[in-house]
């Protein structure tokens, strides 16, 4: 029975990298809503995202290889699509799920063509926003068959 999660694995803190400027306190929202401990790491633009995902020095730093990336395309140079391409072309990160949050509700085709796992509109109200983040993390961490555990277990 190779795929049964041990209690230890269940307890492992998951890391979400949020790129962009969230309109709510994501960590607080997640602490009260998520069923597993989730560390939300917020960087506000693409350059900071690339720097964060560039693993230098400590190879075990989980923040350089998050379990899920939320990419809110509200920044420029490198823009959201560049960051998405960088992640999806990287031999190290390409299995990491990336959900694009689109404030302008525009180019979903670009997201999927570049390898994004989902494209959703950024909600207008705080309540909807929290709801969305909760749904996304629940989907990826509870329902979806998830690459993280098996891929990362030997590193």
């Amino acid at each position, binding site marked *: 029975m190779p795929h049964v999660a041990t209690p230890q694995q269940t307890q492992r803190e998951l890391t979400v990298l949020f790129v962009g400027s969230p309109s709510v306190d994501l960590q607080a929202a997640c602490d009260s809503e998520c069923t597993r401990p989730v560390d939300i790491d917020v960087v506000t633009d*693409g*350059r900071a995202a*690339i*720097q964060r*995902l*560039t*693993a*230098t020095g400590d190879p075990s730093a989980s923040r*350089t290889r998050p379990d899920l990336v939320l990419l809110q395309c509200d920044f420029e*140079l*490198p*823009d959201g*699509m*560049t960051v998405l*391409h*960088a992640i999806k*072309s*990287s*031999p*190290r*990160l390409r299995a990491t799920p990336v959900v694009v949050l689109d404030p302008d509700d525009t180019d979903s085709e670009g997201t999927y063509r570049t390898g994004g796992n989902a494209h959703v509109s950024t909600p207008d109200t705080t309540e909807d926003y929290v709801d969305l983040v909760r749904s996304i993390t629940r989907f990826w961490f509870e329902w979806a068959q998830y690459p993280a555990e098996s891929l990362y277990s030997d590193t």
Partner: protein
Amino acid sequence: MSMTDSHARETPVVPDSLLDSVSLLSKKWHPALVRCLSGTDGQGFSDLERRLDGVSAKVLTDALEELQEYEIIERREVSQSPLRVNYTLTERGEELDDVIESLADWGETHLAEPETEQVVLVADDNKRVNTMHTAWLEDDYTVRTASDGEETLRNLDTDVGVVVLDRRMPGLSGGEVLDWIRSQWYDIRVVMVTSEDVDLDILDMGFDEYLTKPVRGDELRAVVVDLFERRAYSSQLQEYLGLQSKLGLLRAEYPDDTLETHELYQRLRSRLDELEASGGTFEEVDAETLERAAVGSPQ
């Protein structure tokens, strides 16, 4: 008598002249010698010996004599003492060279194994430099270009084999792009190009080779050829060659006592020694490459 028979008798399908030409060209060194002399105003014996890597003096002498007999090449004594001889192509030699070239073209078109595409990504914010570097490489490689760090990221994928990377670019710098490439497990060799003087900051950078602007065409091409070869080497050997290049560069720029007191330099030196000690892994590389890499190391 049928028409075919009479036709065959008049002009044989394979005339002796064709057999003679093919026989001449099928000798290993004959076409090579003609190619060597083509477009030159003559070559000496030792020039030819060097260019035809692997030919013995005896074999070369015989081949030269035979080509002289056919009046394909001409031998002229330039000086008596010491004896210096110059070989040139005759007019009929030049004609033969054209034939050989056509044969080579035909072979390339129809016989060559389809090569896997070799992709070079050229990144520089100076348009002129980008155009120039691209022009030097595009005959032999598929070249992608980028004019800043962001565009470099957008053009980066696992098809890319070598990146020619400007160190200073606006936005994401060459250094940041290099760190990204290294951290993402790409099998990509990087040559860093810069207009600045070599400084100690390069100790931290994971490039494979380093060129200072202005870069010459032959220089860039040689480095790219070398880096594509290196992709086949073990990661240990790649690291070794990269370190050799980096430390050699610094030794050329800085006095020994500056380097010897620099901690990171010391660490890289010991790493280099360590890799050298486990040198059994370097059998895959030919001696020439190692020799080239060792240029600049202490005697």
